[in-house]
C-alpha cells in the first residue's frame, strides 16, 4: 500500500494554481487601483507556465492518487490544459470589460483562477465527494462572479437565482450520493460500476440514487428540464462571466459527467443500456427546446444562453452514446467541447468588444456593424456559422464527428433530431448576421444613428480582444480543416477513461 503522499508531486499544477490564486488575492491588496490590470497579466503568465509544466510533467502519466480519489491521466491532462488555456483567453477577453465596468478587479482574476482549479479537479476526480467538492469550488466562484456587477440589479438577480437553483441541485446531487452510498457503501466511480454490474436486480434505492446524481449534474450542463436558470443567469451576469459560463463551466461539467459515466456506468453494460435511452430523451428535449426558444430571443446574451442549451443537448447525445465497444462517442464529446468552446469564445469576444464600445446587447443594436467594424463582423460571422455547423469551420467537423458517433451507437433518430435542431439554430444565427451585414445602422433615441451616440464604434478593437479573436478564428478554421492533431490527443485522453 502506497503512502498517501507518495505521488504528491503529480498534483503540482493544482497546488501551484491554488498558490497563484492566493497570490493574486494577496497582491491585489497592495496594488494601487490603476495598476490592478497587471493582475490579469500575472494570471495569464501563471496559467501559461502551468500549461507548460503540466504538459512536461504529466505527459503520459497514468496514476491514481489518494487511494483512487484523484486520477492523473491523459484525460485529466487534456482537460487541464484545455481549461487553463480557456482561462487564458477568458482573462484576455475580460480585461477591457473589467477595467471599464467592474470594481474589485484583482479578486475577479483570483476567483477565475479558483474556478479553473475547481474545473481541473472535476476532470480528475474519480470519487463522488471529491467531485462534489470540486464542483462546488467552481460553482461558488461562479456565484460570486455572476454577482460581480454589484450595483446592477440584473447581476444580483442572476446570482441569486443561480445560487438558489444551484444549491437545490447540489442538495439533489448529494441526496443521490447518499442513496448510492447507502446501498453500495462506496463512492468511487469504479466501485459503483462494480456494484452495478454485480447486482442481478438493481434495488430501487440505487436507481433513485443514480438518477438523482444525474439530475444534479444535468443542472450543471443545463439540460432540459433543469435548464431554466441558464437564460436568466447568462443575461444578468457581466458579459465575460456569461462567456465563461458558456464555455468553461459547461465543459467542466461535461468532463465530470464523461468520467463518471465512462468509469462508473458504462462498464455495467446492462444497466448502461437502460440509462442510455433516458439520456437520449433528455438530450432530444434539450436540443429541441433550446433551439426553439432561442428563435424568440432579442437579447444577445439570452440568445446565446438558449443556444448553449441547444449545444448541451448535442453533447448530451454524445454522452448517451458512450459505449464499451468504441471510443467514438467520448472522442466526439471531447472534440465537440473543444470546438464549441473555441467557437463560443470567438462569438463572445466579438460581442464583448461591441459591448465595450456601446454598452448595447440586443440583436437589433448590431445593425450595420459590418460597415463600422468589418473585422468584428467577420469574426462574428465565422463564429456563428461554426455554431450552426457549417464548413469550413470547427462546427461542421465537430458536429459531424459527434453525430456519427451517436448514430453509430444506434441512435440514428437522435442524430437526425440533432441535425434538424441545427437547422433551427441556423435561423437565429442568421438573424444576427442579418443585422450585422444587411441591415443599416439603427437609429438612436436621439434621432441620429448609433454612430453619433457611440463614436467608439469606429475605434479599433483592443489588442487583447484582437488576440482572442485572431487566435480563435485560426482555431476555428484549423479544427474545421485539419482536426487530426487534436483528435489524436483526444483519442489518448479517451483511452484513459474508456478502457
Amino acid at each position, binding site marked *: 500500500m502506497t503512502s498517501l503522499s507518495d505521488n504528491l508531486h503529480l498534483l503540482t499544477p493544482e497546488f501551484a494554481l491554488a498558490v497563484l490564486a492566493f497570490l493574486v488575492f494577496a497582491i491585489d491588496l497592495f496594488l494601487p487601483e490603476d495598476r490592478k490590470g497587471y493582475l490579469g497579466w500575472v494570471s495569464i503568465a501563471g496559467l501559461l507556465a502551468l500549461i507548460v509544466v503540466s504538459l512536461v510533467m504529466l505527459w503520459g502519466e497514468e496514476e491514481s492518487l489518494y487511494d483512487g480519489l484523484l486520477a492523473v491521466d491523459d484525460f485529466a491532462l487534456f482537460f487541464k490544459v484545455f481549461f487553463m488555456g480557456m482561462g487564458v483567453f477568458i482573462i484576455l477577453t475580460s480585461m477591457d470589460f473589467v477595467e471599464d465596468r467592474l470594481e474589485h478587479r484583482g479578486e475577479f482574476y483570483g476567483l477565475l483562477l479558483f474556478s479553473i482549479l475547481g474545473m481541473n479537479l472535476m476532470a480528475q476526480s474519480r470519487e463522488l465527494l471529491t467531485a462534489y467538492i470540486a464542483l462546488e469550488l467552481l460553482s461558488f466562484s461562479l456565484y460570486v462572479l455572476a454577482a460581480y456587477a454589484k450595483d446592477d440589479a440584473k447581476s444580483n438577480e442572476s446570482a441569486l437565482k443561480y445560487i438558489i437553483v444551484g444549491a437545490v441541485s447540489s442538495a439533489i446531487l448529494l441526496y443521490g450520493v447518499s442513496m448510492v452510498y447507502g446501498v453500495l457503501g462506496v463512492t468511487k466511480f469504479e466501485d459503483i460500476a462494480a456494484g452495478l454490474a454485480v447486482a442481478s436486480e438493481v434495488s430501487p434505492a440505487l436507481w433513485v440514487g443514480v438518477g438523482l446524481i444525474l439530475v444534479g449534474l444535468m443542472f450543471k450542463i443545463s439540460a432540459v428540464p433543469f435548464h431554466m436558470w441558464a437564460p436568466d443567469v447568462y443575461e444578468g451576469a457581466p458579459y465575460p462571466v456569461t462567456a465563461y459560463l458558456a464555455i468553461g463551466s459547461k465543459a467542466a461539467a461535461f468532463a465530470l459527467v464523461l468520467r463518471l459515466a465512462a468509469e462508473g456506468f458504462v462498464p455495467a453494460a446492462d444497466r448502461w443500456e437502460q440509462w442510455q435511452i433516458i439520456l437520449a430523451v433528455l438530450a432530444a428535449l434539450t436540443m429541441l427546446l433550446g433551439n426553439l426558444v432561442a428563435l424568440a430571443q432579442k437579447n444577445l446574451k439570452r440568445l446565446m444562453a438558449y443556444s448553449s442549451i441547444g449545444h448541451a443537448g448535442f453533447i448530451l447525445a454524445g454522452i448517451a452514446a458512450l459505449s464499451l465497444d468504441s471510443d467514438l462517442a467520448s472522442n466526439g464529446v471531447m472534440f465537440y467541447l473543444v470546438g464549441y468552446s473555441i467557437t463560443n469564445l470567438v462569438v463572445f469576444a466579438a460581442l464583448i468588444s461591441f459591448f465595450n464600445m456601446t454598452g448595447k446587447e440586443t440583436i437589433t443594436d448590431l445593425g450595420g456593424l459590418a460597415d463600422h467594424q468589418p473585422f468584428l463582423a467577420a469574426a462574428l460571422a465565422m463564429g456563428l456559422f461554426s455554431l450552426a455547423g457549417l*464548413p469550413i469551420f470547427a462546427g461542421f467537423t465537430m458536429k459531424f464527428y459527434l453525430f456519427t458517433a451517436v448514430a*453509430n451507437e444506434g441512435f440514428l433518430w437522435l442524430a437526425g433530431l440533432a*441535425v434538424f435542431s441545427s437547422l433551427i439554430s*441556423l435561423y437565429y444565427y442568421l438573424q444576427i448576421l*442579418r443585422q450585422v451585414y444587411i441591415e443599416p445602422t439603427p437609429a438612436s433615441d436621439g434621432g441620429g444613428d448609433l454612430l453619433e451616440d457611440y463614436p467608439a464604434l469606429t475605434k479599433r478593437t483592443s489588442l487583447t480582444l484582437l488576440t482572442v479573436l485572431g487566435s480563435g478564428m485560426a482555431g476555428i478554421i484549423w479544427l474545421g480543416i*485539419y482536426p487530426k492533431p487534436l483528435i489524436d490527443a483526444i483519442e489518448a485522453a479517451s483511452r484513459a477513461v474508456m478502457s
Partner: protein
Amino acid sequence: MMNDFDQVALLLLILVPLAGSLMMMFMPGDQSKESWYFAIFVAGISLILSLLVFFRYDYDAGGFQFIRTYEWLPGPLDINLALGIDGISAPLVLLNGVVLFGGVLISQTITHRIRDFFVLLLALSAGVFGTFAVRDLFFLFFFYELAVLPMYLLIGVWGSSTDFGTFLRTKEYGAMKLILFLVAGSILVWIGILALYVEASDNSAATFSLQGLAQLSESGQFDETFQTWVFPLFMVGFGVLAGLWPFHTWSPDGHVAAPTAVSMLHAGVLMKLGAYGIIRVGMFLLPEGAENWMPVLISLGTVNVLYGAVSAMSQNDLKYIIGYSSVSHMGYVLMGIATLDNVGVGGAVLQMVSHGLMTALMFLLVGSVYHRTHTRDITVLNGLASRMPVNTFFFAIAGLASLGLPGLSGFIAEFMVFTGAFRTYLPLAILAVIGAALTAVYILRLLARTFMGEADERWADLTDASPMEMSVGGAFVAIIIFIGVWPAPLMRVINVGVQTIPGV
C-alpha cells in the same frame, strides 16, 4: 512535369479558390478595384486548372482519374481526402471553371464591399469544385455545405428587393428561404450519410470512403430494405438543391433577389450539385433503392418540367421567368437521372452542363439589362433590340438553347433525356416533350416583350453590353453552339462516366 501536375491537380483546383478567398480576407481596402483584379486572377487560374483537368482526362481509360488520397482522419471514422474525377464530374468541373470566371469578370458592377463579395464567391466555388472532385462522403458533404453557406450573405448583402405590387420579395426573405431550404435538404443528406456509415460499420467495414462504400454495396452488404429507406433521403435531400418539386420555391425567389454573378453560379452550377449528389451518392451506393424510387423521381421530374414551364408563362419579371425555367429544366435532369438508362443519364449530365451555361448566360444578360434600365419588368421593357443588339442576340441564343433548338446544346441534352425516358417511361416522356414545347411559349413571350417592338424613348441613351459582358457572353454562346453542333468530345467523357453507374 504533367504527371506531377496530375498528382496535385484536383487539390490545386480546390485550394486555389479557397486560398484565394482566405488571402483576400486580409487584403486591405474593402472598396478597391484591386479585389476584383485579384479575383479575376484566381478565377482565371481555376479556369485553366479545370480546363487542364478536363482535357487531360483520358476517356479511353475511363474510371476515376487524378486519384490522390490524403490521410485526414484515419481510424474508426476512416475519413480521407480522397480526390478523383470521373466522366460525370469532369464536365461539371469545367462548367464551374467557366461560369466562375465569367461571373467574376462581369462583376465589375459590384461597387459595395467588393472584397467581401469575392471572398464569398470564391469560397462558394471552392465548395463546388470540391464537391465534384472528392471521393469521400464526408468531404463531399463538407464541400456541398461550403458551396451553400456563402449564398446567404451574397444574396442578403448584394442582392435587391423587389416590390411586385401584390407581394413583396425582399432580399432578406429570399436569402433566408434559400439557405434554410438548402440546409434543410442537407439535413436529409446528412442523416442518409450517417445511416450509410452505421450500416457499413455494422458490417464491420466502417468508412466514409465512396469507393469503400461502393464496394460494400456491390458485394450486397446493403440489403434492399435498407437501400429503399435511405435512398429517398438522398433523393429529396439533394433534390432540394436541384429544385425538385415541390421543394423548388427557394430557387425563383433566390434568383430574384440575387446579384448577377451569384445568380449565374447559383443556377449555373449550384443547382447541379444536387443532381450530381443524387447520382454520385444515391445511385452509386444504393442502386436497388434507386431502382425502387425511380418512378417517383421521374414523376416529380415531369411535374418539374411542366409546372416550371406553366408558371414561367405568366411571370412578368425577367428573373422569375428564368428562375421558373430553371425549375423546369432541372426537371429534365431529374427525369434523365430517373430513367436509369445510359442515354438518359448521359443526357441528364449533359443537360447539367448545357443548362448551366445557358442559364448563366441569361442571368448575365438580365443583369446587364437591369443594370442599365433598372427594371426587370417585361411589361415595361420594350424594344431593347435596337439599343442593345448584341445583348438581344445573346439572349436569343440562350433562350433558343433553352427551348431546345437543335444546333444548340440544350437540344442534344433534352433529346437524350427524351430518348432515355422513351425507353423506360413512355407516357411521362411524352409529357416532357410537351413541356419542351411550352418552353417556347414563355421564351418567345420574353423575347417579344423585352427585345422586340418599337424602342421606347426612355431607352434612347441605353448602351449595349460592355466589352467585358460581350466577351463573356460571346464565349458562352460559342460553347453553347459548339456543344450543340459537335457534342462528341463532351459525350465521350460523359459516356464513360455514366457507364460505371451501377444499375444503368
